[in-house]
């Protein structure tokens, strides 16, 4: 992929901001923090893509997720905090503010069971399930983020699903 233009970058933002936000949200558990970190992801990505001598990025989505991962790690390192577990995230109300009370309860219940199950997974399994089934990343993109072979990613995904299935039973 050729060096990205401002217009292309903003188009990428339009298509992917929701996914990046959701990924970060599941890692940090707080809406405002997820918003701040998401903004930071796009700013930092742009700076890195445009600095002198920057390499051409073949897979922008994988690149952005790598930046997001690194920012989350830095955040916890600076704050000297342990990452939030999904148990803590699961306890917070997540449904859209605009929903009425009944919709909020219904959505929250559906989500609750899945979240709790995801909570019991280890972080690697949790992350890969979010990327594959929520953010709809390709196997090769996940492989690039994790710096693994595609075969290894498929195996990881299969084990993650099996674990999750076991928990939800």
């Amino acid at each position, binding site marked *: 992929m050729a060096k990205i233009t401002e217009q292309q970058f903003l188009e990428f933002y339009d298509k992917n901001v929701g996914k990046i*936000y959701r990924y970060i949200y*599941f890692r940090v558990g707080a809406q405002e923090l997820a*918003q701040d970190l998401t903004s930071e992801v796009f700013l930092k990505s742009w700076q890195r893509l445009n600095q002198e001598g920057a390499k051409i990025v073949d897979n922008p989505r994988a690149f952005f997720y790598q930046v997001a991962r690194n920012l989350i790690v830095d955040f916890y390192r600076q704050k000297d905090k342990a990452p939030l577990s999904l148990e803590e995230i699961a306890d917070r109300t997540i449904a859209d503010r605009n929903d009425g009370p009944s919709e909020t309860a219904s959505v929250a219940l559906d*989500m609750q069971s899945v979240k709790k199950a995801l909570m019991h997974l280890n972080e690697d399994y949790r992350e890969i399930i979010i990327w594959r089934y*929520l953010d709809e990343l390709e196997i090769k993109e996940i492989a690039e983020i994790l710096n693994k072979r595609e075969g290894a990613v498929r195996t990881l995904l299969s084990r993650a699903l099996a674990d999750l299935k076991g928990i*939800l039973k």
Partner: protein
Amino acid sequence: MEDKELITKIQVLKEIKPSEDWVLSCRGKLAFRLEMGRKQDLLKKDTSTLKELFAFLGNTNRQPSFNLAYSLFIAALVVLGGGGATVWAAAQSLPGSPLYPVKLVMEKARVQMSLSAESRLQLQTQIADTRLQELEFVVNGQDSDALKVEKIFQVAEGMQDQLTIANDELPKVGDKAEPQKSLAVAKMVSDKASQASKAIIAAKESLSSDMKSDLTAKLSDAVKAAEKTGLAALEAMIMSQDISSTTKAEIAVKLQEEIKNTEEQVLVKEQKIAQANSFADKLPIRAVLINQFEQIHDLLDKAAESLNKGDFSGTLEMLKAAKAIDDGTDKVTENAVMPEVKGAASSTVDNLGK
């Protein structure tokens, strides 16, 4: 549990999304930062900007120490890109200033950050007012004609950009919003476009004749953009629902003005053709032009008839057709009144036929 069923359960979590307001606000800030970053890079690389700021150092007459402090302050803002102070300095800048392009970028970013088409258009009309004031400032200033030409062109370019964007936004205004609000915005745009066109032409007229010819070609695009936006705004007004009788009267006046302006433009060209020497090689072009001028007059007559009958849409269609033909005759008219240029006549006639 099947994998499919499990994946469906997982995908319920797709409901988790950021709020639309935050997404738009974040995008606006990002776009602004990208633009400011790009402009800062340009300013950093532009050593002539800094040379201009420090030009007083080469001056044998001692400048007051205030000038040194002021220039250092501006240079520091430009190079280091300090937030609020740079923004303030750019916002005060006038055509010819090194920060003027930054001002235009900041205005564009403000418009992009607006959430609705109407608020964007309202901002655009406010910015158009700023351009008109800047144009007046330049015309009434004490600069040499040569410097005025450059500054007028800078302002006209800015106007052209805004009017083009306003033109693109107009169809969105009536989509969901209240018709009265949309109508008010369309009126504003129509007024500003008309003011812009007159102001640019008046600015050109204020210059000496040799400078006027330099500016004509440069400004024609800006004037055309103003006319195009004005017509589009007029169309938006005509398409509005439930317009009052006052507004209908306003629309009628604007249409009448447009018909009259187009007539005058064509008459000027006809006079040029009539007064110029009749070179034999130019006869084919002139014949085609005369034919086209007749078509334009015919369309304008029909436009006037439709207007008398109260058919605004019909009037506008005739007017647009007349202007489309008129636009095509500009360069050809210039060519037709110039002395012989071998080969130009036949190729120009060929082009007209396409």
